[in-house]
C-alpha cells in the first residue's frame, strides 16, 4: 500500500514539475576544445541574461530560470550523451553547441524527447532544415550574410569576384552563397580556391591570385582566425589589392589589431553597438559584470538566446512544457534581443535577424549599414 502511495505521489510530482515556478534550461555546449572560442562567450552572455531576469523575479516576475550546464568538449558523440542526460533531468529547453555538426548529433535525442533545442551561434541555414521541428538557430544565416555582402559589393561597383572557402565545415562554405548571389546580380566570378581549416600558409594561393589578369575587384572568404590573418597578410604581401570581404568569424579583436593590412576590410556580423542601441547597453552591462569589454558579438548573441526563451515562455502564458514552448518559439515575432529584432514566425527555425556590415577603418569598426536583403536574392540553403 505504501509503495503504491509513494509511486502515485512520485508520478503526480513528475506530472506537475515544481508547479511551473522554475524553467529548467539544459546547456550542452563546448567549454573546452575547438568550439570553446565560440561557445564560451555565448555562455557568458546567457549568464548575464539569466541573472538579470532572475534578479527581477523571474520571467514575467514569477518563473525563475535554472541552468543545467554540461561540457561537451566540442565532441559530437559527447553532445548527444550530454543532451540525453539533460533530457533525463527534465529540462524544458536545450542549448546546443555553435557548430552545426555537434548540434545535429543531438537532434535524435531532442526530437525523440520533443524538447526544443537552440544552437548557441551556428549560422548554417541547413541546421534547422536537417534538424527538423525541434531545432532552432540563433544567428543570421550564412546565406543571408552572403546576400548582404554580395549586394553591397555589387552596389559599390565591383563586377568581378574571387572566393576562397573551405569545404571542412558548413560555415566556411559561405562564399559559395556569395558567388551565387553575385552572379545573380550580374557580377562575374573569376575563380575559387579551397583551403583546410587550420592551414597556416596561404602563400601559394596568394601568388596564384596575384598572377591573375585582370585582378578580381573583390575577394570573399568566410575563413576566420587563425587562418584569416595569415591569408590576408599573404594576399597583401603578394601584391593583391582587391577589396576583401569576410564574415562574422573575423569580428574579433585580432582583426582590428592587424594594422595597415586590414584597413578597408569589410565583413558581415550579427550586430553593431550604435548609440542608444540595446547592444551598447548590453556591452556596458557586460563590462560591469566581467570587468572588461566584450571581445566579440557572441556575448550578446547569448543574451539574445535567453531573451528568445523568455519571450516564448511569456507567449505560452507561463508554461514550461517543452512542446508548448517549441510551438511558442516557432511563432515568435520581433523579440528585442541585444543585437537585433528576432523573428522565427514563418521560418523553418533559422531566425530573421539584422545583419550589420562593418568596415575596418583606422583600426576601429565603422558601420556601413544594416540592410535587409531582398528575399528573392537569398539563395536556398545547400548541404555541402
Amino acid at each position: 500500500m505504501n509503495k503504491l502511495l509513494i509511486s502515485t505521489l512520485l508520478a503526480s510530482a513528475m506530472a506537475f514539475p515544481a508547479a511551473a515556478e522554475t524553467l529548467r534550461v539544459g546547456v550542452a555546449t563546448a567549454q573546452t576544445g575547438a568550439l570553446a572560442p565560440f561557445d564560451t562567450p555565448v555562455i557568458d552572455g546567457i549568464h548575464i541574461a539569466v541573472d538579470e531576469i532572475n534578479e527581477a523575479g523571474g520571467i514575467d516576475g514569477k518563473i525563475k530560470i535554472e541552468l543545467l550546464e554540461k561540457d561537451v568538449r566540442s565532441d559530437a558523440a559527447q553532445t548527444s550523451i550530454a543532451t540525453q542526460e539533460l533530457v533525463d533531468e527534465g529540462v524544458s529547453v536545450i542549448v546546443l553547441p555553435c557548430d552545426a555538426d555537434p548540434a545535429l548529433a543531438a537532434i535524435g535525442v531532442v526530437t525523440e524527447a520533443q524538447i526544443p533545442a537552440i544552437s548557441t551561434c551556428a549560422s548554417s541555414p541547413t541546421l534547422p532544415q536537417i534538424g527538423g521541428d525541434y531545432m532552432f538557430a540563433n544567428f543570421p544565416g550564412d546565406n543571408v550574410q552572403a546576400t548582404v555582402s554580395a549586394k553591397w559589393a555589387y552596389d559599390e561597383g565591383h563586377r568581378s569576384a574571387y572566393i576562397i572557402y573551405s569545404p571542412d565545415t558548413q560555415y566556411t562554405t559561405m562564399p559559395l552563397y556569395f558567388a551565387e548571389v553575385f552572379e545573380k546580380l550580374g557580377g562575374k566570378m573569376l575563380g575559387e580556391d579551397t583551403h583546410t581549416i587550420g592551414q597556416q600558409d596561404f602563400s601559394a594561393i596568394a601568388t596564384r591570385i596575384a598572377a591573375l589578369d585582370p585582378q578580381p575587384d573583390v575577394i570573399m572568404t568566410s575563413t576566420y582566425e587563425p587562418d584569416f590573418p595569415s591569408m590576408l597578410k599573404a594576399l597583401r604581401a603578394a601584391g593583391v589589392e582587391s577589396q576583401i570581404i569576410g564574415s562574422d568569424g573575423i569580428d574579433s579583436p585580432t582583426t582590428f589589431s592587424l594594422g595597415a593590412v586590414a584597413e578597408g576590410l569589410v565583413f558581415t556580423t550579427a550586430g553593431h553597438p550604435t548609440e542608444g542601441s540595446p547592444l551598447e547597453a548590453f556591452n556596458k552591462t557586460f563590462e560591469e559584470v566581467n570587468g572588461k569589454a566584450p571581445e566579440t558579438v557572441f556575448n550578446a548573441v547569448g543574451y539574445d538566446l535567453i531573451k528568445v526563451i523568455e519571450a516564448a515562455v511569456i507567449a505560452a502564458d507561463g508554461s514550461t512544457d517543452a512542446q508548448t514552448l517549441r510551438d511558442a518559439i516557432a511563432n515568435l515575432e520581433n523579440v528585442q534581443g541585444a543585437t537585433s529584432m528576432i523573428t522565427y514566425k514563418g521560418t523553418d527555425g533559422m531566425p530573421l535577424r539584422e545583419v550589420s556590415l562593418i568596415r575596418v577603418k583606422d583600426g576601429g569598426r565603422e558601420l556601413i549599414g544594416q540592410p535587409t536583403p531582398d528575399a528573392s536574392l537569398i539563395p536556398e540553403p545547400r548541404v555541402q
Partner: protein
Amino acid sequence: MDLFLQQTVNAFALGGTYALLALGLAMVFSTMGLINFAHGELMTIAGYILMACGLAGVPFAFSILLAIAAAVLAAIVMERIAFRPVRNASGATMLVTSFAVSMILQVLFQNFISARSQAVLVPEILSESVRFGGLVIGVNKIAAIVTTIVMLIFLDRFMKHHRIGIAMRAAAEDFSVARLMGIRANTVIAGAFALSGFLAGVAAVLWVSQRASVDPLMGFTPVLKAFIAAILGGLGSLRGAVAGGFLLGFIEIYLAAYLPSGMQEFRDPIALCLVVLVLIFRPNGLIPSPALKAEKV
C-alpha cells in the same frame, strides 16, 4: 617562370619553418626515444609571451628573446616534471604522457587565459614585401628563410663542437655506452629538451608573426606537420628532420600552386599519399638515423 620561382621561395619559407619544428621533435627523440606531442604547447607558450609583451609595450625584438627563453624554460620544466619519472618506461608510456601534458596545458590555457584567440601585435614591417626583379617576396618569408639558415648553421656547429652537443650525439648513438664513458644522462636529456624548446620558440615567433594571434589549441597543427616531416626524413635523424621539413614544405606549396582547381580539395590527402610513396621506397625515411637498428619483417 617567375611564378615558379615565386612559389619556390614560398616553399623554402614554409619548408624552413617545418624543418625547425621537425628538428625540435627529432632532437628529443634521438636522445630518449620520445615523440613529444607537447612540443606544440611550447610554441603556444612562446606565443602567449609575445602577446603579453605586445600588451605591455615591450619592443618586438626584445619580446622575441623573452618568448624563446620562455619556451626553453618550459621545455626544461616539462622534462623535469613529466618525462623524467617515465624515462625508463616503454615508448608507448612516454607517448601517452606527452599527449597528457599537451591536453593539460591546452585546458589550462583555455581556462586561465581565454578560450578565444588573443591578438598578437606584430610589427607592420613583417607584413610588407620586397621586390626582386619580377619576384615579390614578403618580409616574413625572408625572415623565415634567414632564420632557418642561421639556426641550421648554429645547430650544426653546436652538435659538432660543443661538449654537450657531442655528448648528445654520443647518447643518440648508444646511450648505455655513452653513460659508461662518463656522460651524465640528466645533462644530455635536459640539454636535448632545452634545444627543442629553443627550436620551438624560434618556430613560434615565425608562426605567430604570420597569423598575428595565439589560441589554446595553436600547437596542434605545427606538431602534426613536424611529426610528418620527422617521419619522412627519418625519425631520430637530425639531418633527416631538416630534409623532411623542406620536402613537406615543397610538396604542400607545389600542390597548392599547380593542382587543378577541381582537385584542390584533395590537396592534403594527395600530399600524404606522396609522403607514403617516399616511405615505400625509403621505409626508414630520407636520411635514416644511423642509430636506428630497426629490423622490419
